[in-house]
């Protein structure tokens, strides 16, 4: 437990929030995907809103952590971290920002500007498809890490 790393914990909290956002979000996109949440669109909406707030919170914590690391000149690689300056971490950071901004626009424009709402919805929806595809690819490339480390056999004769 004492060896639990911050980037590892953040990664899995983020993954759980992302999965809940994806399930609730895709079931809200169109009625034909409503089966994912048993056609309970009110519940899907609530789950999506709560997890959106958590998603924003975890993104904020990650950004602050990364800024503090830079201030402290800590250049250690954090392979589990959700944001970074290159590769999939950078891609995930950009996609997260786009989803947050377009999601916030949907939240605001729902009340007064239906044209901007339509644009924000379109951006949010298509970026979600890209994000889903990228996550499947990410899981494909990285699942070998999920293998539980085998304990080394203890040689009794050496004791």
């Amino acid at each position: 437990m004492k060896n639990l790393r911050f980037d590892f914990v953040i990664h899995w909290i983020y993954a759980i929030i992302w999965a809940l956002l994806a399930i609730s979000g895709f079931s809200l996109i169109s009625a034909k995907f409503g089966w994912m949440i048993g056609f309970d669109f009110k519940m899907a909406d609530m789950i999506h809103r709560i997890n959106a707030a958590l998603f924003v919170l975890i993104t904020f914590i990650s950004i602050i952590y990364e800024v503090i690391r830079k201030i402290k000149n800590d250049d250690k690689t954090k392979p589990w971290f959700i944001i970074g300056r290159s590769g999939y971490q950078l891609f995930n950071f950009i996609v997260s920002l786009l989803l947050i901004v377009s999601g916030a626009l949907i939240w605001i424009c729902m009340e007064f500007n239906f044209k901007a709402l339509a644009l924000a919805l379109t951006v949010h929806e298509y970026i979600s498809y890209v994000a889903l595809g990228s996550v499947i690819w990410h899981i494909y490339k990285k699942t070998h890490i999920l293998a539980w480390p085998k304990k080394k056999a203890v040689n009794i004769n050496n004791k």
Partner: protein
Amino acid sequence: MINKKNLNYWRLFFIFSAFTIITLLALWVSPVGKATMMNKSMSSMAIGMHLENSTVYDLLQKEESINSDQNITKETSNQVNEDSSETKTLGIITTVIIFGLLPLILGGSIILAIVWIK
């Protein structure tokens, strides 16, 4: 031939495929809430209703007149909001988190972009 390195991926693939098939079968056996507007996504409907023939200028304008359909939608959503005070409280908390942190996230992102490029 499946690469041994990706064996865990295929395990996950089959587990989630099984979940999907079971859910679809369960809904097929007892279709509780069949929706009618099945073939359009939310964004394609919104584009058809609001965004056709619009300019960038229109996107920035606050709409002055909301037609009767939209009034009905607003009234319905207000009723839903008033259904439960818990939902309302939850709405306020999530809104405060999102819009309170959004400027900080954007600011932090700009700082990181500058630092990473250097």
